[in-house]
C-alpha cells in the first residue's frame, strides 16, 4: 500500500536505504540526517546484518536516529577511530556521504572551493575521504541538485578518488574503488553508464530527465528511454522512519519540507 502523503525527505530516505541492500555484515555509515535514517531503515527491513553507530563511538543493536534520545540505546560494540580505520581499510564498510562538489568521474570535494593554497571558501579538509574512496563502497546524497554541486570540470580539490583514468598511472583505479549510488532532491543515479558514466536510474515523482540534465554540469546516461519513477515509501516504511526519527529531524532538511509528489503540494 502506498501512502500518498509522504514527504520528499521520506522518499530520499527510502532511496538512501537501498544503498545497503545486499551489503552483508558491514559497517553502514550515513552522514547527515537522511542517509543516517536511511541506514536505520535498511537495518530494520532488508539488511538486519549491517552495523550502525550512535554517531559517536558505539555500535548499537537498534539504529539511533538524529537528535534527542528518549532512551539509552543498547550497545553491541565499540567503534573508536582506530577500529573504524581498520574496518574501513578491510573494505567492510559502505558510507553514504554528502560532499559539496562532485564531477563526472565521481570525484568529490569537501576541502576547499577555489585555489587550494588560498581558497575562496575553506571547508572541512579531506577528512577520511581519500582512504574511504579506494577502500570500500561509497554512495552520495546531495540536497540541492544543481551545477554548483554537479560541476562541469573536475572538482576544485579531489578528496575522493573517482573513475578518472588520467589520475592513475596505469589508467586503472585501485580495486577497492566502488562508487555506487547518488541520491538527490531530483533523482537517483548510479555509475552504470559506459565507462562508469553517471546514469539516472530513477526520477522522483513529476521530475523529468531533462530537468535533471539541465541542473547537471556534465552529460548523464539513462537506465532506459523511459526512466522509472523513484519508489514511493510504503506505509510500513513510513512507520519505521517515524520510529527511527521521533524528533522529525527529517522535516528540517529541505526548505518547507515539500511533499514527495510535487503535484500534491
Amino acid at each position: 500500500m502506498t501512502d500518498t502523503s509522504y514527504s520528499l525527505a521520506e522518499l530520499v530516505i527510502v532511496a538512501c536505504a537501498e544503498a545497503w541492500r545486499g551489503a552483508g555484515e558491514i559497517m553502514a555509515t550515513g552522514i547527515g540526517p537522511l542517509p543516517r535514517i536511511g541506514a536505520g531503515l535498511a537495518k530494520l527491513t532488508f539488511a538486519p546484518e549491517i552495523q550502525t553507530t550512535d554517531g559517536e563511538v558505539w555500535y548499537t543493536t537498534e539504529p539511533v536516529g538524529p537528535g534527542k534520545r528518549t532512551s539509552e540505546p543498547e550497545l553491541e560494540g565499540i567503534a573508536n577511530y582506530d577500529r573504524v580505520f581498520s574496518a574501513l581499510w578491510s573494505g567492510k564498510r559502505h558510507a553514504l556521504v554528502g560532499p559539496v562538489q562532485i564531477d563526472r568521474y565521481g570525484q568529490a570535494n569537501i576541502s576547499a572551493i577555489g585555489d587550494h593554497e588560498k581558497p575562496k571558501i575553506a571547508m572541512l579538509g579531506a577528512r577520511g575521504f581519500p582512504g574511504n574512496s579506494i577502500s570500500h563502497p561509497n554512495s552520495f546524497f546531495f540536497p540541492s541538485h544543481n551545477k554548483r554541486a554537479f560541476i562541469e570540470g573536475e572538482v576544485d580539490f579531489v578528496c575522493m578518488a573517482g573513475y578518472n583514468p588520467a589520475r592513475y598511472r596505469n589508467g586503472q583505479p585501485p580495486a577497492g574503488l566502488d562508487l555506487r549510488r547518488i541520491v538527490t532532491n531530483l533523482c537517483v543515479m548510479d555509475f552504470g553508464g559506459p565507462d562508469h558514466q553517471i546514469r539516472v536510474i530513477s526520477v522522483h515523482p513529476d521530475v523529468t530527465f531533462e530537468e535533471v540534465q539541465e541542473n547537471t554540469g556534465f552529460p548523464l546516461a539513462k537506465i532506459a528511454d523511459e526512466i522509472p519513477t523513484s519508489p514511493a515509501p510504503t506505509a510500513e516504511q513510513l512507520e519505521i522512519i517515524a520510529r527511527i526519527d521521533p524528533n522529525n529531524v527529517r522535516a528540517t532538511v529541505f526548505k518547507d519540507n515539500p511533499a514527495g509528489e510535487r503535484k500534491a503540494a
Partner: protein
Amino acid sequence: MTETMLDKRMTLDEIVDQLSDGMTIGIGGWATRRKPMALIRAIARSGLKDLTVMAGYGGPDVGLLAASGKIRKLVFAFASLDHFPLEPHFRNGRQSGSFEVLELDEGLYHWGLRAAAMKLPFLPSRIGIGTDIIDQSGFDFKFVTSPYEDGEELVAMPALVPDVALIHAHRSDERGNLLTLSVDPFFDELLVRAAKKSFATVERIVPTAELDMKANSRFNLVERAMITGIAEAPLGAHPTSAAPDYQLDLKHLKTYVDSAASPEAWSEYKARYVDVPEADYQAAVGGAEAAAALPVPIY
C-alpha cells in the same frame, strides 16, 4: 637523585618555555575532544612564532593558534568543531592565505605517525591515489613499487616527526604514568611515540596507587618513558571535552565561533579568555561547578 629526575611535574609556562620558534608541534585529541587547550592558550599568549602545527584531527586548537598568528604551516586532515562543522578561525586563516598547508587523509596522517613511531622513513599506503592529496605544493610525495609479485605502486607516506607532542589526559602520577579514561583514546599514543619529546596536561596528578592500574590498564596510554613532563591543568581541555570528567561546552564553543566574525570580536574574546592566567579563564567559564553540569552532547 633518581627520585628527583622522575618527578616530571611542571607548570604550563614551564612547558611552553621548552618550545621554540619554528618548531614542529603535534597536538593530540580529536576535533572537540581532549584537546590540550590550556597549553594552546599558553602558547597563544607566548612570543612563539613560525610553528609547524601537526593537528591531523583539528578543532579549536588549530583555530586558536591560527587566530593568534602562530602557524607558519599546518599539517592536517580536517579542522572542525563537530556541532559547528566549520572551524571559523581556521577558515579565516586559510582564506587569507596566512599559513601553508599539507592536507592529508585522516588515515594517512595516522600512517605518518606510525612510521615515525616505528622509526621508519615511510610506510606504504594506497591512500591518496587518485586524489589531489598527493598532488599539492605542501609536499612532494614519492611512490614505491611492491617488490613482490603484485608489483602494485603505492604512496610512500613519510614519517611525521614532531619536535614536541602536546596531549591532554585525565590522570597521571608525578612520574608520568598516564590514564586517558575516555572511551576513545584517539591517536595520542602514536603521536607521543612519533615525537622527540612529549608533554601532557592532566586533570589531576594523583599518587600512583590511586591510578588503580589493575582496574584501569586499558586506559594507560603509553609507558612513562615516553613522557617528558606533565602539568596539572584542571579543565585543561575546556571548551573541548575530557569525558567522563566533563563534556564539551557547546555554549562556550558558540562564543568562540562568534569571535571569528570580526577583528573586534576576536580582540574581545582574546582579552577575556586568552590573554589571562589559566585560573582566570577557568573562572570566566564557570569553573568546576559549571563544567560538571555540562550535558552529554548528542552526535
